[in-house]
């Protein structure tokens, strides 16, 4: 019985970019800055593709919530092999208050509407590091969750998932449907090739708004301030070991 997968992809500032804080200290500069697909979401798409190649999955739907540019992220996922896309449009001025709780509600609604068997997400987004969306989506759907997955196998009863936890690796079994989130070592994502990029242009992408899914956008969290980490101070050169010991004593690092 071939499964249907809903993969969530987020457009984030590229991991290599140097982040700058906005003058109002309520966020970071995003205009004119290079963006790309959240790396953990690439891993999620790749895992869905491998399941499709193994004939476990017969349809991959990719969804992204964001402004007009989120379409680029959807096209990348389609170029990696996803079958069709859903773009949940969030106006640019609402992006600052658009939070994981809203994404979870959107995903939960879409999962029900599309009757998917697996919701596949990245374990966290590299811009907010929240690591909440998969868990909240599972809770809203009342589905089992397999988060921080580093290996996913199909069993007769459902799925067997190996998770990376602090103490090592944990193996769990879940029934289907389930919500999964991809960890770093789950796989190495493929590159989109030119023929697939061309094919992706013809794949269907549907647009909708959160209101169409009955999701209210009122923020539940208020960002109070965003600050740079403390600036690194210049070091002090010391002339010899005695000098070093004296300075350490002065700064209270030595009790001797």
């Amino acid at each position, binding site marked *: 019985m071939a499964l249907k997968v809903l993969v969530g992809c987020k457009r984030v500032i590229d991991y290599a970019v140097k982040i700058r804080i906005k003058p109002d200290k309520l966020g970071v500069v995003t205009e004119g800055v290079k963006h*790309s697909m959240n790396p953990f979401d690439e891993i999620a798409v790749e895992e869905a593709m491998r399941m499709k190649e193994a004939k476990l999955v017969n349809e991959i739907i990719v969804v992204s919530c964001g402004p007009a540019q989120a379409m680029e992220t959807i096209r*990348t996922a389609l170029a990696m092999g996803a079958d069709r896309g859903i773009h949940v449009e969030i106006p640019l001025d609402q992006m600052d208050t658009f939070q994981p709780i809203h994404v979870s509600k959107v995903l939960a609604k879409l999962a029900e509407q599309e009757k998917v068997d697996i919701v596949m997400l990245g374990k966290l987004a590299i811009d907010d590091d929240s690591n909440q969306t998969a868990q909240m989506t599972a809770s809203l759907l009342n589905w089992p969750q397999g988060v921080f997955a580093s290996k996913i196998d199909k069993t007769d009863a459902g799925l067997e998932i190996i998770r990376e936890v602090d103490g090592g690796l944990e193996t769990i079994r879940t029934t289907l449907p389930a919500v999964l989130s991809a960890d770093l070592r789950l796989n*190495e994502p493929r590159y*989109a*090739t030119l023929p697939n990029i061309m094919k992706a242009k013809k794949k269907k992408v549907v647009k909708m708004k959160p209101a169409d899914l009955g999701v209210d956008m009122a923020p539940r969290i208020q960002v109070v301030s965003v600050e740079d980490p403390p600036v690194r101070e210049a070091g002090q050169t010391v002339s010899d070991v005695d000098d070093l010991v004296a300075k350490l004593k002065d700064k209270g690092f030595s009790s001797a």
Partner: protein
Amino acid sequence: AKMRGLPKLLSRAKRVRVGFSASEPVLAIQAGILQPDKFTQTFVQLRGLQSSNVISQAPLAAVADTDSGKQLRQELESIVGPGNVSSGESVVLQHGQDEGPHQGKSPDIVVFPSSTEEVSEICKICTKHNIPIIPYGTGTGLEGGISAVDGGVCVNVSKNMNKILQIHQEDFSAVVQPGISREMLNQEVRADGLWFPVDPGADASVCGMCATGASGTNAVRYGTMKENCLNLEVVLADGRIIHTAGIGSRPKKSSAGYNLTSLFLGSEGTLGIITSATVCLHAIPESVAAAVVGFPTVQNAVDTVVMTLQCSVPMARMELLDEVQMKACNEYSGLSYPETPHLFLEFHGSESEVESQTETVRDIAADNEGGEFQWAVQQEDRTKLWTARHRAYYADIALRPGCRSLTTDVCVPVSALPDLVTATKADIAEHGLIGPMVGHVGDGNFHTMLLFDPADPEEFRKCKEVANKMARSAIALGGTCTGEHGVGQGKMVLLEEQFGKDGIDVMRKIKGALDPQQLMNPGKIFSRNCNI
């Protein structure tokens, strides 16, 4: 005569290596110690110096604490800004030493320009004061190409000039500044389904790769820098800015005028400073497969390679690792390959193409007594399979912790490879050295990592002897003394043997035409103050 800079000059003269002593009299003349006789007067004139008042000026005026040094610094600061000029000890030290085994010499001053125009102004100043100019990219070279043998100004063009200026997806080309490394370029064009295939191992500056004529594991299918560069923006020693294929030109081919792009590719900073490069991109292959197969002898492996090429299999990578290298890889990466010569292969194409290519090569290998043919398609599995090859250099260094490697770089017609490899291995054994071997065997290019203890000059001398012998054999077999690393300082003598007197003379005349004062990266490709 100004004697102010004299003590420093004398100490510099003492540090000059054997083989460069021709310049000592020049230094002495210029410090006003020796009275120039007629011969040396002519010699000095040939260097582009003019009258007696110039002779009395210290040529190494970049020396920081002299008046002329301070004046130079001021002039440079007025071009690039005070924050972009440095003569700090650690800065100059870093800018004189690359990743090769040769001890580099520090420049006097390092400048960090932010535009081609600034580079041009810097060159004008250095030309005015007769000061050597050394271009610097990422310092990942292996031939001492950035060593400031005469001191001078090191022009670090990668720090501030680090933009990708243009990407032309449909035309498969990109224009980059020196600060863009090949991995940075790949990261940028990946999303468009493109890649830049020249892979010399290190994450080198693309413009630096143009300067050394770099190549790598993918050359057998995708070519070297020479096949992947369409145009270069170059600043000459006198500050003039030229575009080697035409201003803003990027056609795939051209018959217009002399091929200046080819001239500057591989010129190792001796003819000008590359300030931007237009390079070719390729489509990321739809499917990639990797394979590893062992053979009883190098001859078997090379025969497999030759037959594969004759069957027109469009191999993407064909790497030969000898048994010494396999042993090193086993120990370093915890693998358990048989200690025999191995071929590491990569296939690119559509899924069906890759499958049929792999089948063809599997059969050829078997016909040549190949052992187990391991292969993989999945990204992680391919990475694992190629681990041995990727970590080869570090595995070699780990064979003798604390040692360094003199890496040779000969390239011969493929048919000559087995004989040369056999002769080389015998020579290495005779000298009592350890020399694992890795080869881009599809191009007939192979490297031996001759390990030496940096504290043992005798061992280094032995390595040099083996390296020179290998290069001479390669030249005699119809090959070249350097396939991809460049001449730098270490292979100048070999260059003369490869090209003969007249060939070298033509090169020197070109050098003289573009750099009459011989300021551009002295002591590389040609000895300093050579006859131009």
